């Protein structure tokens, strides 16, 4: 991911304000307008395809919420809740898609978060893929021995066959990773970041606009 023009801190603070606004709005036309604006931003940033993949998963959640709230309360509340969920998802999608994890951890350190905590946040994203690939290998290895791991029920029944090797490998990976990180100076004092975050005028304008919107709607 190339460096973005906005500081991650301003984006994070603005995203939190916008999320607050979306939570506060309780009529469907406002939620719809908010979602439309956010989709406009998605298209402007040429993130349409990735957003559609997100909607693939989030759509199910929104649909489930819609049904539950409709049955429990009424149709209007159901529409508001599902639109809100989609809009909130889109806000944080925009934030994460335009912020490199390293930039985020640098920004968190600048905001006072201890470095190990901020680093674990960004490093863990890399290991989601590694562990997902290991889980797929384990599943194939166990299926090849005749352990039925097809479908959710069967997978649940034979969960130890999947989780046992995965946990053991995850612990081993964590041990190896700790060595490798130490060997590249994880514990060294005086770390300096390659891209030091700096708040520019555009960042202040963005945060002021988001804060203004929040104050107008919520207060």
């Amino acid at each position, binding site marked *: *991911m*190339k460096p973005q023009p906005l500081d991650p801190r301003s984006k994070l603070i603005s995203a939190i304000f916008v999320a607050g606004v979306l939570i506060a709005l309780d009529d469907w036309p406002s939620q719809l307008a908010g979602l439309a604006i956010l989709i406009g931003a998605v298209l402007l940033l040429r993130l349409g395809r990735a957003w559609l993949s997100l909607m693939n998963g989030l759509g199910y959640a929104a649909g489930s919420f819609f049904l539950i709230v409709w049955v429990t309360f009424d149709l209007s509340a159901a529409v508001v809740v599902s639109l809100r969920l989609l809009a909130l998802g889109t806000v944080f999608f925009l934030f994460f898609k335009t912020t*490199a*994890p*390293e930039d985020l951890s640098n920004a968190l350190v600048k905001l006072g978060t201890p470095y190990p905590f901020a680093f674990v946040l*960004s*490093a863990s*994203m*890399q*290991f989601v*893929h*590694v562990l997902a*690939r*290991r889980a797929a*290998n*384990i599943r*194939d*290895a*166990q*299926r*090849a*021995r*005749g*352990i*039925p791991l*097809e479908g959710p029920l069967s997978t649940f029944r034979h969960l*130890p*066959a999947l*989780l*046992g*090797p995965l946990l*053991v*490998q995850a612990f*081993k*990976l964590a041990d*190896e*990773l*700790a*060595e*490798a*990180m*130490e*060997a*590249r*100076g*994880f*514990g*060294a*004092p*005086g*770390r*300096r*970041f*390659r*891209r*030091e975050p700096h708040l520019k005028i555009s960042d202040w304008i963005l945060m002021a606009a988001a804060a203004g919107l929040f104050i107008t709607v919520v207060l």
Partner: protein
Amino acid sequence: MVLRFEHVSFRYSGISDWGLQEVDFTVHPGEMVLVTGASGSGKSTLCRAAIGLIPHFYPGSWEGRVCVDGLDTRDHPVHELFGHVGLAFQNPDAQIFNQTVEAELAYGLESLGLASDEIERRLSWVSDVVELGPLMHRAPYSLSGGEKQRVILGAILALKPRVVLLDEPFTHLDPGGAERLRMLLRSIRSEGIALIIAEHRLHEAVADVDRLIVLNEGKVVADGPPRRVWAEDLSPFGLNLPPLVRFFREQGWKERPLTLGEATAVLKDKFYKGELSRFALSEGLAPKSVGSSRGLTNSPQNDSSPMIEVEGLDFGYDGKTVLQGVNVTLNRGECVALVGRNGSGKTTLVKHFNRLLKPTRGLIKILGQEVRTKPLAELSRHVGFAWQNPNDQLFQANVRDEVLTGPRALHAYDRDWCDRLIERFGLEPLLDRSPFQLSEGQKKRVAFATALAVRPELVVLDEPTAGQDEPFRQELAVLMKELRAEGRTVVVVTHDLEFAAQHADRWVVLAEGRVAADGSPNTVMADARVLAASGLRPTQSFQLSEALERLGKEFRLETTAP
């Protein structure tokens, strides 16, 4: 000197054997040293001690001292040494922890506290050295094994260390990747950086190194220029000697050439001195180590009836084609090696044999019956898999249950057969132990037993020799012979072409998802077009065999010329 081990002994806490014993050697700037030895001989322990992880990370008994660039590792924690010495660990996935290649390369530089313009300068330099320019913004998990290795080396080199250690760097590389790594190592050495390579696959690196250190049970048992070390008796140390060395030893000759060019020159010299007859060259001088790749016909129970038939197989996912129009027939009792670059579709193909994967198009028959109509559980009784990483399948509380999991799940428990397997793999003393407490070699044995526990007619071995020493390779060769003698078909998915040439009748070469060649190892290796398309290299045994044949012809011509 940049690295000095001074009478170093180390024993891991809770383990009775010493990992290192009285290890004493010195490495100078720009020197390239190959450290070898059987599994458990202390190679990885030596690497850890060199960068200070031992004694700072691993508790245990420590004697002697290690100095890196003048710094005693006992007095300096790892984060004070990492700018002086770097280690590329065995597992690439466990040492890349940033989201982009660029961030990975920059991580150590940030740890050093360098100014951002210096970081940019070093990033630009190192991305050129390790040729990562076009990959700088890629996510590391999406890279190939060879590319990941270049990222790891780049991240270390960016720190401009005096010494770089690599723990089994060739293990997961295909022949093309190995060649590229050799070139990179030469260029690192030309920068004046000392290199220490811990490796089983000696033929990959020995021609480039200045020194060879052999470890056995933590002790240095040989140390010197490779030619001098080859002259010593190394038989007790479980080394996988390069084919050239084995050949000259078998002939009882004292010369120890490191390259084919040197070997050819020695042979010519011997001929002109009359120590080698023309007849020997042209007719009979195929040593045991080479003979197997000069036309293998050892197929004890090959009755030519098909075990697996693959017809017009296509497979792809996410719009990416992985296999295209694959046609292969594997017969009963055959041993077939599936070879090709990383990502050429080898593992994808074998996963179709028992419907772990379902083809996009085409059909697969097992023992004459289409697999499409069979459930995976039924097919698993015919096809046994021993995967590269045995940890992918171990989950039971003890070894006995682990071995019997397959037979119980498939209702195919044959007590006599399982008892024989347990005896065959020497598992009796381990039966009540947790599989997680076993050594990697013991885990491999358990994995083989589980693959065979339901008496499958087809056995697939996935990279069985990766990271394994010579005793294991020999044991594996015996196992494969036994399986074939029982009429089972053995499929070996491998990058280890020396092993594949010695023990497989046939090579099926995959290149970009297609079968580029299907024939004897010799036929494949003699076809330059196939080698180029599939990124393979002829084995040293094959090249030696060809050189002998060429010399035979040359001398015949010379002696018959008017």
